[in-house]
């Protein structure tokens, strides 16, 4: 009785320490059980029965209980259990139906104590009463459970499950007299130990065998059961009918289940087939294991938590002949590896994003937030126009504007639908497209169209004035240079296009050159900004020269200016492409105040040298090349197109390509063009803009693209005699070897247009058939078919 006084299982003052470790056994293990001191473990199997001491760094074999020369079947253990109150008391279940108890206190080498040979078949499970020193329960393949009093030679009572083999028996921790048993046929029974005649309760827990069960150490009404149906179910046994509280779906059949100490919702499972891993599940999170131990190379047969109050040490035995101690902190945690977020760019620039609803983990840090139902959330985002290309800078990445309801790709659709690409003179096309772009608030693009118009449409008008003007310019060679300086200055100070205009208005040193093209834009669209200033500038320019001369000069000025003007555009076009709404004045003001100005300034600054160098080059050309054919700009226009394409606006690239046609095509290599076309067509098709896409395909000059329209058109022709599909040749039927294209009316072979009814395959000359149909709707061949022609 002295031992009884030490029954408390509180964790000793010094907490357990140890490592993840394993040791090799001589033979595969079938079961393990831990001594209540948490320092020893017994391993039992068909040909092994040993006690190991669990030391800090390793397992040390302490005792081999298999003694005697010839191995007895009694020693072939299916299960082993160590008494949780008596350090010296063990029981094993043998495959031949014998239940053996062992007393480690015996002085002799053979520790065998009692032998009960009452079961007829393999005993699957033995279980000591949790608080009674002498009560042992066994469950056998023969369908019976027996209760033994270790002070007697035979069983006290026998319980008949009335069903199939017993797979597990477990004494309840809550009720002194109650135990649960699980059966091969999927049933779970609850027994009162005093009433062997019939069970207290029975219910079907699983499909197929229930291999194991375990009472919850704290929530004592809870029973976990594991079955071949790959499920672990947690039952509340306190209610009238057993109620399923949780259900965990594992990957393989569940051979053992053990609640994790101190963690209310955790349990460990292992499988007897296929899967070698040990999983720890949070029952509230039934799909992903909370932890996973992957040490074993063969099926894990026994698992046991080392100490009933320590959640971090798990011991396991396996068919791979190893004994392992697993540390929870070394476990792999599939939950951690699992991707908590889904992210996808939608077509219209919207973003589908799935994330945890709450990323704050529950109190323990390991337990996931209970019942976390998670929803994907849609974000529609709009890019800050001040954001530099691709948001390569970190700061820009984190800035968005709230713009509910406006999809950032709507400009694409609108533009695609409204652009005119052919069928009108170039100037009109440019104007139209410019207008479209402006209406959509894409001023940069609008400007580009306007510029293209200037470049390509005017030279024919003023072939002679070119000379005239360049002479004039040659005389004032400071002018273009100054111009380029101006631009640079501006570029540095500029945050936006409107400010460009404003500063133009302010800069008195400005020249005609600048204004001449600037007015083209500002006159038309920028009333809301400094529109009034600009005409003033124009006037200023006017004052410098004669009226009509300036008028003639205008386009030419634009020429010389083109390089300078186009290039600054390149410095910050994305802003304009992405903006969905027209940048109102306040809008721009905001941007000017925002920290992003610095970003765009830097951007501009870095590009400024390029501006100036280009402008200088162009200036020299302007000075010495008196004639400026549009060809001169084509390289530049190509650069611009490439630039647009690179910004992701293939739409612009392709549209310009189509509109300008021969003018630029030769300067861009075929492959690039093709690639643009292909990209644009693909985009159009994604947006279901079939008409536009078809138009683009038609207008494309690239062979690979234009053949797209023929690619998927198949014509199925049937022979008019035998009604079989004609495979190889279109004219002669393979089967009946007759010419298929006979006119049903005049019975001559049809050359040229041949119409036929798709229903009966009969047809003939267009005129004949039309004539025939006026009089009758039946087939002229007399087949009785009501022909339909569309």
């Amino acid at each position: 009785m002295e031992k009884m006084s030490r029954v408390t299982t509180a964790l000793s003052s010094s907490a357990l320490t140890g490592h993840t470790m394993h040791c090799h056994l001589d033979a595969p293990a079938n079961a393990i059980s831990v001594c209540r001191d948490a320092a020893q473990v017994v391993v039992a199997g068909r040909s092994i029965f040993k006690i190991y001491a669990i030391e800090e760094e390793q397992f040390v074999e302490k005792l081999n209980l298999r003694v005697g020369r010839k191995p007895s079947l009694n020693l072939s253990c299916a299960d082993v259990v160590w008494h949780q109150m008596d350090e010296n008391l063990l029981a094993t279940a043998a495959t031949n139906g014998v239940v053996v108890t062992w007393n480690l206190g015996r002085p002799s080498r053979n520790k065998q104590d009692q032998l009960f040979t009452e079961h007829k078949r393999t005993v699957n499970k033995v279980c000591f009463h949790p608080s009674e020193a002498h009560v042992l329960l066994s469950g056998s393949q023969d369908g019976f459970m027996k209760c033994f009093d270790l002070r007697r030679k035979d069983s006290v009572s026998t319980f008949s499950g009335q069903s199939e083999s017993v797979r597990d028996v477990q004494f309840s921790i809550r009720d002194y007299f109650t135990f649960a048993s699980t059966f091969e046929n999927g049933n779970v029974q609850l027994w009162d130990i005093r009433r062997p005649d019939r069970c207290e309760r029975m219910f079907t827990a699983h499909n197929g065998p229930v291999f194991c069960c375990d009472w919850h150490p704290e929530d004592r009404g809870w029973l976990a059961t594991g079955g071949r149906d790959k499920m672990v179910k947690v039952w509340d046994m306190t209610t009238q009918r057993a109620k399923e509280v949780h259900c965990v779906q594992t990957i393989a059949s569940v051979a053992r289940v053990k609640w994790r100490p101190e963690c209310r919702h955790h349990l460990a499972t292992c499988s007897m087939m296929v899967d070698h891993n040990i999983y720890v599940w949070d029952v509230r999170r039934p799909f992903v294991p909370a932890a996973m131990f992957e040490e074993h190379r063969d099926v894990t047969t026994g698992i046991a938590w080392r100490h009933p109050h320590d959640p971090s040490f798990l011991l396991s035995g396996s068919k791979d002949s190893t004994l392992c101690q697993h540390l929870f902190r070394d476990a792999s945690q599939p939950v951690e590896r699992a991707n908590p977020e889904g992210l996808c760019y939608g077509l219209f620039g919207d973003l589908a994003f799935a994330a945890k609803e709450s990323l704050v983990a529950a109190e323990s840090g390991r337990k996931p937030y209970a019942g976390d139902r998670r929803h994907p959330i849609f974000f529609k985002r709009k890019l800050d126009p001040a954001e530099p290309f691709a948001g390569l800078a970190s700061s820009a990445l984190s800035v968005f504007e709230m713009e509910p309801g406006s999809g950032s790709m709507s400009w694409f659709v609108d533009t695609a639908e409204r652009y005119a690409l052919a069928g009108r003179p170039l100037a009109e096309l440019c104007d139209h497209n410019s207008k479209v772009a402006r209406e959509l608030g894409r001023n940069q693009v609008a400007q580009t169209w306007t510029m293209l118009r200037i470049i390509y449409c005017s030279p024919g008008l003023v072939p002679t004035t070119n000379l005239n003007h360049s002479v004039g310019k040659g005389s004032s060679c400071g002018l273009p240079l100054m111009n380029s300086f101006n631009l640079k200055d501006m570029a540095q100070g500029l945050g936006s296009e409107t400010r460009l205009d404003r500063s133009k208005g302010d800069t008195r040193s400005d020249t005609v050159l600048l204004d001449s093209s600037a007015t083209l834009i500002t006159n038309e669209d920028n009333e809301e900004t400094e529109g009034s200033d600009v005409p003033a500038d124009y006037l200023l320019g006017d004052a410098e020269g004669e009226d009509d001369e300036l008028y003639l000069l205008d386009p030419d000025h634009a020429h010389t200016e083109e390089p300078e003007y186009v290039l600054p555009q390149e410095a910050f076009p994305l802003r304009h492409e992405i903006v969905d709404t027209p940048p109102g004045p306040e809008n721009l003001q905001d941007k000017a105040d925002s920290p992003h100005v610095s970003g765009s300034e830097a951007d501009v600054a870095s590009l400024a040298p390029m501006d100036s160098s280009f402008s200088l080059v162009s200036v020299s050309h302007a000075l010495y090349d008196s004639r400026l054919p549009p060809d001169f700009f084509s390289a530049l226009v190509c650069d611009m197109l490439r630039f647009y394409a690179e910004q992701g606006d293939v739409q612009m690239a392709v549209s310009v390509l189509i509109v300008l046609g021969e003018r630029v095509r030769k300067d861009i290599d075929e492959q690039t063009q093709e690639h643009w076309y292909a990209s644009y067509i693909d985009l159009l098709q994604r947006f279901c803009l079939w008409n536009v896409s078809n138009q683009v395909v038609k207008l494309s000059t690239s062979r690979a693209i234009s053949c797209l329209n023929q690619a998927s058109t198949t014509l199925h022709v049937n022979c008019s005699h035998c009604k079989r599909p004609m495979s190889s040749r279109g004219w002669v039927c393979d089967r009946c070897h007759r010419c298929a294209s006979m006119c049903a009316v005049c019975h001559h072979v049809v050359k040229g247009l041949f119409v036929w009814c798709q229903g009966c395959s009969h047809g003939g000359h267009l005129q004949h058939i039309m004539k025939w149909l006026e009089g009758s709707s039946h087939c002229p061949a007399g087949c009785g078919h009501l022909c339909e022609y569309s």
Partner: protein
Amino acid sequence: MVSVINTVDTSHEDMIHDAQMDYYGTRLATCSSDRSVKIFDVRNGGQILIADLRGHEGPVWQVAWAHPMYGNILASCSYDRKVIIWKEENGTWEKTHEHTGHDSSVNSVCWAPHDYGLILACGSSDGAISLLTYTGEGQWDVKKINNAHTIGCNAVSWAPAVVPGSLIDQPSGQKPNYIKKFASGGCDNLIKLWKEEEDGQWKEEQKLEAHSDWVRDVAWAPSIGLPTSTIASCSQDGRVFVWTCDDASSNTWSPKLLHKFNDVVWHVSWSITANILAVSESQQNEQ
């Protein structure tokens, strides 16, 4: 900064791991730890559950839509080591193929550009990448790259279809000779680029090294405009890199650190015009 325009109640019972929109942006497929894949019609801001696909026996990590020219096809990959290809026939979604060639969790699936035919790349925790090619009549041909990444492969992403050399001489109707390439990221902290050799074997073409922890996602930018190649990658180490290769002949890639986050970055996703990159990080910051 961003506004929620729509919340979809997926009624998934556990964490959602991936959400993908189809080619036309009309349908959204989600997959979850609860072993199911769900498809929603999200046209006009609506959210109608079209299909609830059950068949996986473990958490489903990723889904991928095939190009619509092959019909409505969705691939999903799961912890249960399986890749399932689902197909819509007459309005009902059904499993058309199940690939069980991996020894561990399959983490990523990605369809090749439609120009190549129906090819699916799958990256798995067993370190291998398998390529399933549809050969017609319900048959799939499997090629496996073993030991692509030690410890495991987390992400695969195809390069857009770009034709080497000129197309001009191609007789029309004949399939151009594409060079198939894809990128993969794995637990060895590497991004690897793979290229199909002329004999149909896949060969490691390039190893990109910059991350100091597991690479979580790679995304090859859609090639719009100039054919410069760009790849975005993100990692457990919180860093997001954008790799560019300007000179295709030398095949040298240079990384540019986009940003360093404080926590794991799970996803990178390009917008269709390749000028916006979305990044998702575990602190629920949506960038």
